[in-house]
């Protein structure tokens, strides 16, 4: 299967699509920044674009906002093609990566900016009232007359958020809004953003390269790679049923062993690993005999023990994490891999020290057979 043109689960069933990308591509000269994007965003959901830097996330967002025109394909808002509709006509607002607050205006003036552009003009009192309310929502009530440069990074981010949500947009686009915040503040803002989204019912589209952020906040995640969407699904779907080694490695951590298909029967397939071992696994994608594949086993689905089944390993490193212990183990021909051992089983059966010989085994149902790239 090709990576491109993934259309599988591009929209959750029976929900109204508020925005859609249909075969959208964008190139800048020779650079293909986005390629054949297909995606349907439904009203009220929290969707994330997740992928490494340079994979085209911002480009996708900017096409929704109206800052870039697709080279190919259609962008739809509320069922209408808006490819060439200017940004200032789109009922969509964006929180910029560096916030892009107006430095010559106060906090309140920044927040009221969108409302002041409405024609016919809104009464001043009404704007002031809405600004006050928006300030309350982002908990900045006493800061309305502050200058932008007098605000901290976290406060600036809230101003940017207030400036966008005050317009009650159909879509709120957020481009790595947490990237400039420190770790602790980031956690707080993540929770705050989620609360805000539920409270306001606005559709959120978030761009991030932080898998933890995407997993903890989103209803659905759209995994991107080199300008393409490789998989769309809920955090659980992506974690449990990744469709490629790339996704399995990007969403959570996993151990990978490459090999090729020798036999398929029933729900299982037999894989001849590169080191000559033969193992059983569950197909995660369509398979053909002889095909190069990769087996993915999550660390928590591997069992480290002293019985006689499984592969022989030596413990190279041990990190105690409280409810789990993480072991880095080495197998002569399979190489290094990670095993997570629950505290309870260690209490029952004893733990392991660095240098110990042990065995690792896993169920065939936990070994997902995927595309090797």
């Amino acid at each position, binding site marked *: 299967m090709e990576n491109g043109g993934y259309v599988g689960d591009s929209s959750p069933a029976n929900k109204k699509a508020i925005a859609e990308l249909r075969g959208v591509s964008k190139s800048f000269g020779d650079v293909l920044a986005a390629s054949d994007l297909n995606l349907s965003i439904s009203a009220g959901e929290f969707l994330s674009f997740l992928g490494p830097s340079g994979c085209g996330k911002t480009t996708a967002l900017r096409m929704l906002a*109206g800052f870039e025109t697709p080279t190919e394909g259609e962008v739809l808002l509320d069922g209408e093609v808006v490819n060439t509709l*200017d940004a*200032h006509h789109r009922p969509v607002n964006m929180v910029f990566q560096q916030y892009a*607050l107006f430095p010559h205006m106060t906090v309140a003036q920044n927040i009221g*900016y969108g409302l002041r*552009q409405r024609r016919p003009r809104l009464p001043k009192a009404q704007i002031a009232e809405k600004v006050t309310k928006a300030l309350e929502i982002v908990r900045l009530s006493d800061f309305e007359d502050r200058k932008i440069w007098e605000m901290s990074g976290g406060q600036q981010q809230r101003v940017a958020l207030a400036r966008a949500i005050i317009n009650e947009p159909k879509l709120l686009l957020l481009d790595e809004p947490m990237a400039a915040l420190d770790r602790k503040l980031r956690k707080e803002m993540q929770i705050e953003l989620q609360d805000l989204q539920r409270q306001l019912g606005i559709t959120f589209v978030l761009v991030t390269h932080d898998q933890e952020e995407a997993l903890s906040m989103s209803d659905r995640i759209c995994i991107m790679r080199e300008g393409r969407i490789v998989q769309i699904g809920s955090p659980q779907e992506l974690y449990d049923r990744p469709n490629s080694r790339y996704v399995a490695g990007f969403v959570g951590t996993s151990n990978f062993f490459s090999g090729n298909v020798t036999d398929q029967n029933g729900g299982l397939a037999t894989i001849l690993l590169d080191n000559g071992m033969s193992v059983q696994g569950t197909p995660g994608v369509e398979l053909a005999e002889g095909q190069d594949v990769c087996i993915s086993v999550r660390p928590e689905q591997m069992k480290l023990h002293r019985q006689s089944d499984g592969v022989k390993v030596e413990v190279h490193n041990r990190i105690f994490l409280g409810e789990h212990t993480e072991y880095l183990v080495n197998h002569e021909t399979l190489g290094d891999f990670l095993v997570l051992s629950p505290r309870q089983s260690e209490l029952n059966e004893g733990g392991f020290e660095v240098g110990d010989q042990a065995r690792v085994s896993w169920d065939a149902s936990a070994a997902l057979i995927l595309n090797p790239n």
Partner: protein
Amino acid sequence: MRIYAICVYLFLYIPIGVIALFSFNAGRHASQLQGFSTKWYGKALNNPFVMDALETSLMVAFASALFASVFGTMAAVALQGIKGPVRTAFDLLIYVAVMIPGIVIGIATLIGLVTVFDQLNPLIASIWPNGFEPPKLRMGMGSLIAAHTMFLMALVVIIVRARLAGMDRALTEASSDLYATPMGTFRQVTLPLIFPAILAGFLLSFTFSFDDFIIAFFVAGSETTLPIYVFSSIRRGVTPEINAIGTMVMGVSLLMLITAQMLLRRGGKKTK
């Protein structure tokens, strides 16, 4: 190295210092100091020829600085939006306009305008209703303002462009994302943020125009600007009155340059 630098500065500034010093000379000879007095300032300011020339200079400087600021800003903003060979060509032309010696601009403008006027004047006369005196295009205030505006516009473009380039593109995008039309964005975001640069450009232009002798010498026609007046007076010998005029012009220019510099610094910080 340091001594060398000191010598260069002394060489540059001693003559200027001497002029300022002698402008307060009580005696009437420019070569010997005879006590302190401000009478030459009074004399200069009461001289109708000086005041006439000053008025012409101020009008020319104000008009050309104003035109240069407006057109220069428009050009800078427009250039921001285009790319490729057109942009490169304009960039090049703008730098050339700033670097060309004043004497070349002066001669070129003179020849160009005289040629055009010679072609146009008979044409105007021929279409003018009989019995009325047809207007005659000639060198004067208009040509002076035009020549200064042309050269100063390039200066303003460079100053404003530097500010525009330092401005985060996301700011104008944020504005249009918040429903402002392109005109609204220009008025509410771009203009306020580049205004210090425009003002600095205006002040610099004003100073350049006010101080200019070379271009004015060629295109002023029968008008006399202050530098032209000073030049023609010097031929009759340097008097303390001339020194007083020079000192005043220098003071005003210096003040404007410092203000412009401060505007450029302060505004630069704010857009970051």
